[in-house]
């Protein structure tokens, strides 16, 4: 889809407000497992979305025809 999902695809938990903190902390070298645990993302469905979704909006924007 290109844009990171707002809710968990399986259970519907709101995730869109958590990407920023997650990405920042993982980028700064923290263990993703610890970050997910501390952010209260318990279920493996939500954890999959957090770990594997990629923001491709900039890529898509290149192909926008005016």
């Amino acid at each position: 889809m290109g844009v990171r999902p707002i809710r968990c695809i399986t259970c519907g938990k709101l995730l869109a407000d958590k990407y920023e903190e997650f990405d920042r902390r993982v980028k700064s070298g923290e263990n993703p497992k610890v970050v997910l645990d501390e952010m209260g993302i318990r279920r493996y469905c939500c954890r999959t979305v957090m770990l594997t979704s990629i923001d491709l909006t900039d890529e898509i924007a290149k192909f926008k025809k005016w």
Partner: protein
Amino acid sequence: MGPRGGGEGGDGGFEVDIEIRALNDGEMEFKLSGVNPAFANALRRAVIREVPTMAVDEIEVLVNDSAIHDEIIAHRIGMVPLKTPLRGYSLPEECNCEDGKCPKCSVTFSLKKEGPGVVVTGDLKSSDENVVPVDDSIPLVKLEKGQKLELLAIARLGLGRMHAKWQPGVATYKYMPVLRVDPRRCDGCNACVEVCPPKILSPSNGKIKVSDVTKCTMCRMCERACRREAITLRYDDTEFIFRIESNGALKPEQILQKAIKSLEDKCKEFIKLLDKLVE
């Protein structure tokens, strides 16, 4: 309480008890006892199917220069949970208006933004200050320089059974684990302590102590690790650990209240229909 008690008391009725274990703005955990699995599941399904919440249902795109299609923007805005007041709005099916756009059953959001920048939920201007996105920083679309986005969104009450965007949250339950250690058989080898994933077993005086049995995941690793069959894991199907996790639209206790109300209304409706049949 028995291994297959079914929850009925001696007089054939239910002796239901709720013990709140944790409660905050987003989550609620309680022990539900004296009911059978069918009732616990009915409650779980009532929470995810029958609690009315607000979500954007219709969208009118006036200008969209962004790289994202109208439909995807509509889907994203629809998925944003909206804070829902308990009273004041009615379901569109139950409203007297014809088009489902009257102020009694709908809230209108307007959005107008020009790039460069990210359009976030905070840019949605609501016609009712009580119905707003639960978080203002959710990114919806990214706009490049000069691109414009302008739209109107109409939010309505809805039920989880119509679309998952109207689900107020997640509800789960599990049977109460019953973990017994036979002190006559246990020789204190501590094999079970090592393998237990939630780490609820600890050695004490050469025997095994269970700290918080509600954390048990029922994996039976301890049973398998024990060479002397001293540890047995059963479950009590008249006691449940029930969790309600809100996505922010309603408070968890409000969700539970609304869910039970919907069950009650359904039963009343059923009795009414039966009465009609009997007459």
